[in-house]
């Protein structure tokens, strides 16, 4: 995770690239362990505002400048989320998936060099960024009904030492029993810590509550010894693609 606090916000993007590059060795250690499988790299980048009245300006940048240019140079999944319950609010979160780490670096470098983005980002408050690793079948931004646009999304991270490199099959089984269907299951890139992140879509807060309560009551889930370390709830930004 890249902590941007205290950093010149204008250096955010270059630092993000640098941070990711510095994780290169660890990243390849992860991908090498399953070299026969394709992996996707997911970037989670947050943008914070000091006050809610700054959010329209932020969304104008993300939807009006950043997204159009990203669409020109990138074909992978993209989501734009708006935090409704998160440790730091107001905040917008951009999830971008890339088929390789090298492609992520390349695209990010192009974005960083674009004059409109540079100009706009000069006024942006920095947030923080995470780089996650996932497999294609664990990345389902496009899955599910279109009513998701009215629902909520939860980004939830577990510390689970017994899961080793990836969530075991029992995790998905327990999730299914509880009605939890992640649209992203990923682990931290380049980190040798048992940290796993899920992005889960729910139709409502009430259904979310029921689902997690159901999971907590599942004895087989308890046996998996996973501890929540962070959770944030979002809604889809109006301009966000569903994939």
């Amino acid at each position, binding site marked *: 995770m890249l902590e941007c606090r205290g950093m010149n916000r204008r250096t955010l993007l270059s630092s993000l690239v640098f941070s990711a590059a510095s994780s290169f060795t660890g990243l390849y250690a992860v991908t090498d362990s399953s070299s026969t499988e394709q992996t996707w790299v997911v970037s989670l980048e947050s943008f914070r505002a000091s006050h809610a009245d700054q959010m329209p300006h932020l969304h104008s940048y993300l939807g009006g400048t950043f997204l159009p240019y990203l669409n020109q140079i990138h074909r992978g999944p993209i989501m734009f989320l708006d935090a*409704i*319950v998160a440790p*730091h609010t107001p905040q917008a979160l951009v999830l971008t998936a890339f088929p390789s780490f090298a492609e992520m670096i390349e695209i990010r470098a192009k974005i960083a060099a674009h004059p409109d983005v540079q100009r706009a980002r000069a006024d942006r408050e920095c947030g923080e960024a995470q780089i996650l690793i996932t497999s294609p079948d664990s990345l389902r931004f496009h899955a599910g009904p279109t009513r998701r646009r009215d629902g909520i999304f939860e980004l939830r991270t577990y510390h689970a030492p017994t899961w080793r490199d990836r969530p075991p099959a029992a995790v998905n089984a327990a999730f299914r029993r509880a009605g939890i269907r992640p649209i992203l299951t990923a682990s931290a890139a380049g980190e040798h810590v048992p940290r796993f992140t899920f992005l889960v879509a729910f139709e409502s*807060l*009430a259904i*979310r509550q029921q689902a997690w309560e159901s999971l907590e009551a599942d004895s087989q889930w308890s046996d998996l010894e996973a501890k929540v370390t962070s*959770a944030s709830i979002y809604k889809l930004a109006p301009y966000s693609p569903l994939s």
Partner: protein
Amino acid sequence: MAWSFKIFPSIGIARIGNHLGSSPQDYYVGPEIPGTVIVPPNGYKDSSGRVLRQAARFRIYGWENGVFMGEITSSVADITWTVELANTKAAFNRFTGIGEPTGPLRNASVTDRSSLMITPGPRTIAGPNGDAVFDTGLFMGTPVPLGEIQTDSNGRLLVLGGFGNSSSPTNAPLTSFDNNDGWHDDVSDGPVTATVAIHGTHRPVQASGAWVICPLPRFAPPIFHIISLYDTLLQVAVDRLGYQVPYPSSFTNDVYPILQRAIQYQWVTTKIGNRHAPLQAVIPPPATTDQRNMVFQQLRDPAIYPTVDTPHLMPAIWTDYFAEVFGIRGHGSPNTGHWANHSLTPTQYNVMQNWAAGNFINDWVGPPPPGTTITPDGLTRAALENCSGGPFFPGIETSFFTRDAYPYVEPFRLDGSQLGAGDLTKQQAVPWQTDFFDCVFQSPLSWWPAAHPDDVFTVNSNNYVTWDRGLNSFSDMVNFWSGLGFLVQSGDTIIETERTL
């Protein structure tokens, strides 16, 4: 999936003002980020010279199964706030010094004690954009409005205090700085509670409660008290709750603020002038051991009994055991050569002692800029660092009871189940203006120069002038307090503005 909720700030500050409006343009919200100074867009007064009220904004933060989730607003939850404000000063004990916490009653001849208590009762509002008014309190049968509560579009709570009205229905004279029978003012305090139901759960949960104090205006916002209420209640947390202060200390976050506050006092008292220049010599760190020791050796050791004189040691503010020093009630005591000053808190003193010994983190990259992020703990700190943490004789925003007697459920969070509305202000002077008039420099020490500046600079003067010039009596302060100027940063200086006397 159990949710728990807490209200922040755990103690909020809403300051009185005599501008009567209650629309958003009629008040300003107090500091919510530590180190920030709020300057309203059009100043602290309206075009008629009336002082705007400072609102206290309260927010709910949520934890789910112990995991911090963030702020909870009305977009995800049904929030119902309940606030009670009261002013019970006139029914409480006469102030006779903190060594005498159970003195005789104020207004002892009044048998109907409830007639002395301004207690409009609790007000409840649910959801965004609500409001309720504390307009049913009476003092000796006379209505005394104490303010109102509102919720904003996100369901956050705003508390607005009274209007600076102090009077005597019996036309009693003002005779002392602290106890004036027959008089009331409209400062107040009380509990802030809330129930929260995450949408779809249908299970309202009681949030851990907070408290609001509605004291007098803060006329010198850029000047921080050398011992703030945050420092004092941090010491309470250390002493009574086992809170552990990080060690070693940060120069930037722990040492520098103490030095800087002392340096900034040059803008509110002529007694300092350039005498604090040696403090500039130890910034930036590390400075030499001799330089650090020279500063540290000027500080009074908090282990010294409060009534003992420590001539010329700092800070140069009176002890809150003032009455005991003189063997009498303190008011009007002539200068008898005493230098019984208030010490830093033990935690502040330890920070300085360790710094002098070289045990600190040199993290200096320049004066720390104000933060940009609102956090739960930051909300509390921002509120309390703008209040006086002593001396409590009897005090500005609250009294020695808050430090010495009242119970806390966690650091900075009072145990509301054992307190009542009005308890945090009941031992303050009644009316507040008499103490505020009196609490000027009293040779050889000051009282609260960050609350009541002794001497200031004006935009037209390079020499100190008396801040409360033109006010010559208790009555003058009661009638004309809103004419006093506010201090603002102007380049590298701090000057008086908006004086309307």
